[in-house]
């Protein structure tokens, strides 16, 4: 059984009916529980729970500090390439978008690594578009071997791989993976991914499972908020995370709650997710998975990121550049999306200290 089968159990479930039927009493009961059922989690994602954000926040804050301390792991993404064969309607890397396509040489990877390492960060997330010819797993492995000299933790956010390919990258030095399912609703998924290998919903959905089987230490998943009803997407993301944690108890499982940002394609979000709704999602997830990680990107603006600090977030990106080779070469190619928090690593660290949090640059030692 995989997460695909698990999600099938909710086929035909009346989500709008359930969400509309949640009462204040149900929310209050869920808030008093130590271990939440999936239905409790869904209740906390309901419109009724939006009236209980403060008690949810109080509990989420306590749980987060108890389990993770007043510490925030910092990392930064490094875009290796923006070649892509997909036509995802919401993504700047869409193959039909007329943007300059680039792929870093190993020398350029090293130059980028030097620029990032100078900030003190030891955790890095490498990204590519989906193009098996331009950026095959062997290329990623070569890049990881270069980056290993500068970083103690290297995660990948690349197209879905086979278990053997994940094993190859782990052998090269990768210890974490991020895979955004983008949207869990299979019908909506098909609409938004008209062409390209990303059309294969199930191969993408089961990618973290294959990575877990290959021995990946960190599994990070997420839905792109704005593509579908955020409440059900948040529910399925949490369910997926919980399933992964049960299936791979020795892995660290985390979710990301990214909201859609402007990009080269100009696709408008189908649903605008408000700040309060984003907060509700993060709080509900924290109560559902007290030890689950929550990764917050620079898609969100500085003030909001600072205020979300104590509410469940455990990892943040900083010093972000979404352009291929944007740091060392100074090139200004089109990025995947526009960021909202342009703060440098130092500025982010100072903001954390000011709020009573410790920036953690290194939280893993490559073995």
């Amino acid at each position, binding site marked *: 059984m995989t997460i695909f089968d698990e999600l099938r159990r909710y086929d035909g479930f009346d989500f709008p009916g359930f969400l509309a039927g949640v009462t204040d009493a149900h929310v209050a009961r869920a808030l008093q529980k130590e271990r939440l059922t999936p239905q409790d989690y869904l209740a906390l994602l309901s419109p009724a729970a939006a009236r209980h954000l403060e008690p949810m926040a109080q509990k989420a804050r306590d749980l987060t500090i108890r389990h993770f*301390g*007043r510490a925030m792991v910092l990392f930064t993404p490094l875009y290796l390439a923006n070649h892509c064969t997909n036509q995802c309607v919401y993504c700047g890397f869409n193959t039909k978008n007329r943007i300059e396509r680039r792929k870093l040489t190993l020398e350029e990877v090293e130059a980028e690594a030097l620029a990032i390492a100078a900030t*003190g960060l030891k955790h890095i997330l490498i990204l590519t578009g989906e193009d098996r010819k331009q950026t095959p797993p062997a290329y990623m492995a070569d890049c990881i071997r270069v980056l290993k000299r500068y970083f103690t933790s290297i995660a990948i956010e690349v197209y879905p791989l086979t278990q053997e390919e994940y094993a190859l990258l782990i052998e090269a030095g990768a210890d974490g993976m991020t895979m955004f399912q983008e949207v869990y609703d299979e019908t909506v998924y098909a609409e938004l991914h008209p062409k390209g290998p990303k059309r294969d919903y199930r191969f993408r959905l089961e990618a973290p499972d294959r990575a877990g089987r290959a021995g990946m230490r960190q599994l990070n998943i997420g839905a792109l908020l704005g593509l579908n009803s955020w409440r059900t997407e948040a529910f399925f993301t949490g369910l997926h995370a919980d399933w992964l944690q049960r299936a791979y108890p*020795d892995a660290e499982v985390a979710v990301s709650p990214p909201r859609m940002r402007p990009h080269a394609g100009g696709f408008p979000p189908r649903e605008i997710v408000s700040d309060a709704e984003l907060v509700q999602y993060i709080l509900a997830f924290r109560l559902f998975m007290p030890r689950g990680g929550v990764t917050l990107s620079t898609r969100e603006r500085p003030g909001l990121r600072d205020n979300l600090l104590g509410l469940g977030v455990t990892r943040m990106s900083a010093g972000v550049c979404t352009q291929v080779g944007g740091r060392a070469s100074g090139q200004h190619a089109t990025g995947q999306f526009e960021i909202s928090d342009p703060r440098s690593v130092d500025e982010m660290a100072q903001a954390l200290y000011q709020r009573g*949090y410790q920036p953690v*640059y290194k939280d893993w*030692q490559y073995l």
Partner: protein
Amino acid sequence: MADQLVIGGVALESRLFLGSGKYSSNAIIPAIVEASGAQVITVAVRRVDPGAGSENILSHIPRSCRLMPNTSGARNAQEAVRIARLARAAGCGDWIKIEVISDNRHLLPDNQETIEATRILAAEGFIVLPYMSPDLMAAKRMAEAGAAAVMPLGAPIGTNRGFRTRELVAIMIDELDVPVIVDAGIGKPSEACECMELGAAAVLANTAIATAADPVGMARAFAQAVAAGRAAWLAGPGAVSEQARASSPLTGFLHE
């Protein structure tokens, strides 16, 4: 004669060990150490970065404190051994607290893998202190494998739920020849005191102090509680009776 705890040939006056993982800033650590009087502090090797300058946690550990690097993040014996060797190579000394956790939902230690890591590292000359689920037989095997002390959890790590494993730890204290140090889950000074009254050799606290509103004040309170509990243990607590014993017995007239 001073009441000392001897581990790996090192005599310690303080029986409160510190964790270092959850503070708002590493810069607070010296104040915590001073207030607690602790002489042993554990540091996750995964967070040690000798090249990080002022952000390097090791630069905040007072020289008076003995470093006990831990293998946090290890999922099996092999990874724990590699982390321990990295710690020694980085100049962190020979003490190592083994943490092998393959359950990220509850963070419960894997005793079997911990026994194996203890055997390998003790043979390499490390002073090994294994963090473990309280289990007498597993603890005996760790001691036989060369553990200098064993560190059973009082409650799941980070929960502040208190001394929930009291019955099992009490048996370990009675049966084992190596020191028993209660690690994890202790949330209040009174609970640390209870561990010491029971005969524990020491208590390790991290979350309880680091997440307190006043961590320095809480460190001081823990120091006092651990000292009081130890003093009570040394003084030999009176026997506990299930029934009240009136000073003027109701049946006394039968003996008149």
